[in-house]
């Protein structure tokens, strides 16, 4: 029964079948499968995007529970990349007209080191530099990035790690180039909500100005075209790239003299949606099921945890 419910969530598109991209209709039945999928466990990017509680378009847990008619059955859906990518700054060398940063990259799956190919983008305002590297079978690699000292502000190192053919993950490191301040936490300046191949940017201060919006995948990077601009909200169009990769969307800008670089991924992974098993429910009375799922051809891991009915321990 529990396995059946878990599989149902991943094999049924729900009702309406395109509820992910249709924000003006109410959810009648919850299911994460892509409408008209050709092979099982293919999930809809927008249905997954709406599980992100940071998004302006998120669905509420209560609505989902109501449509499943399991209000008192604890349920949690976690979707994450198969590979963990972590980055740390190893050294910084001032070479006069440029600064060279060396980063260590670690790639692991369930704490086991994995070799992977790396595609790295460093973003500083409108300036983008693209490098490739790899991690060894020990799951360790290095990336060198040089940034001109004529520029300054908040920079991002975006690292996409790939294991052929369809395992792609990412790691992002935010750092200050040639300025004193530490990077601000995500969401300080803008709230980013991608849906239906549009990026909604909500400015948090009226004094802000966006200087660029970009998308990065394993093989491509593009500037996003502005669709609408109104006070406090801007919309950008996201290209439908046929690349086996999550999309990293980056918005850079200024709030008076402070430069910022904020990002979100599309689909927004890793994500956890549902009941809090550590706080409210007894994890000993729960069943966790692991699935491999596909979102835009890239492979991710989905864990569905189901608790006992009426378990309010």
């Amino acid at each position, binding site marked *: 029964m529990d*396995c059946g419910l*878990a599989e149902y969530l991943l094999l049924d598109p729900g009702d309406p079948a395109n509820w992910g991209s249709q924000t003006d209709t109410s959810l009648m039945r919850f299911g994460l499968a892509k409408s008209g999928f050709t*092979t099982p466990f293919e999930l809809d990017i927008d249905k997954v995007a709406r599980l992100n509680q940071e998004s302006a378009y998120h669905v509420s847990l209560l609505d989902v529970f109501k449509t499943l008619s399991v209000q008192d059955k604890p349920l949690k859906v976690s979707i994450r990349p198969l590979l963990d990518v972590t980055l740390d700054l190893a050294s910084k060398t001032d070479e006069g007209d440029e600064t060279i940063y060396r980063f260590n990259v670690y790639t692991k799956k*369930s704490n086991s080191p994995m070799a992977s190919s790396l595609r790295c983008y460093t973003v500083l305002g409108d300036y983008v530099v693209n490098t490739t590297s790899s991690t060894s079978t020990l799951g360790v690699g290095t990336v060198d990035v040089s940034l001109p000292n004529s520029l300054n502000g908040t920079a991002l190192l975006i690292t996409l790690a790939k*294991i052929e053919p*369809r395992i792609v993950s990412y790691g992002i490191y935010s750092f200050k180039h040639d300025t004193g301040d530490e990077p601000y936490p995500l969401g300080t300046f803008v709230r980013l909500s991608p849906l239906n191949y549009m990026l909604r940017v909500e400015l948090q201060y009226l004094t802000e100005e966006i200087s660029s919006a970009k998308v990065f995948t394993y093989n491509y990077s593009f500037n996003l075209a502005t669709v609408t601009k109104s006070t406090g909200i801007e919309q950008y169009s996201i290209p439908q790239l046929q690349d086996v990769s999550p999309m990293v969307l980056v918005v850079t800008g200024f709030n008076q003299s402070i430069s910022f670089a904020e990002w979100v991924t599309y689909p927004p992974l890793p994500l956890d949606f549902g009941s809090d098993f550590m706080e409210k429910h007894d994890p000993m009375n729960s069943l966790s099921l*692991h*699935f491999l799922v*596909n979102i835009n051809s890239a492979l991710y891991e989905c864990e569905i945890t189901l608790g006992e009915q009426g378990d309010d321990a």
Partner: protein
Amino acid sequence: MLRNRDGQVRVLEAFLASTLVFSALLVTVPIRTAVENSRDRETLYVIGLNMLIELDREGELGNLVAKNDWSTLSKRLSTLLPLGVAYNLTVYNEDMGIVNNSPISGGGTLVNNVLSIQYLLAERISCQFYVIRLQLSWMK
């Protein structure tokens, strides 16, 4: 004398009560273990079948079998299966002869409670059919 008899009855009562408690434990432990085993097997089945479907999604499983590339197939299985799951995969042809000439296994040794999944594979280029038998067990 009457008090002594009372005492004997109490001892008998205590003995019967403890027998009842221990027999209840003896009965419930196998039931609980059986339920856990059945859940473990159900979980393994879901993991194994889901992984075979994913490997077969764009014809990769068929390509690797057609090329007899058992080491790559083994690497893929090790990457895709969760930590703690041991596996052994055997490829059979239409006459149920074993095709793989080297073992395709990993994640440790298959112990008791081994689950077996049969998967019919259609190789898309030469239209050959194979039966894949995937054996899985949790490492204890």
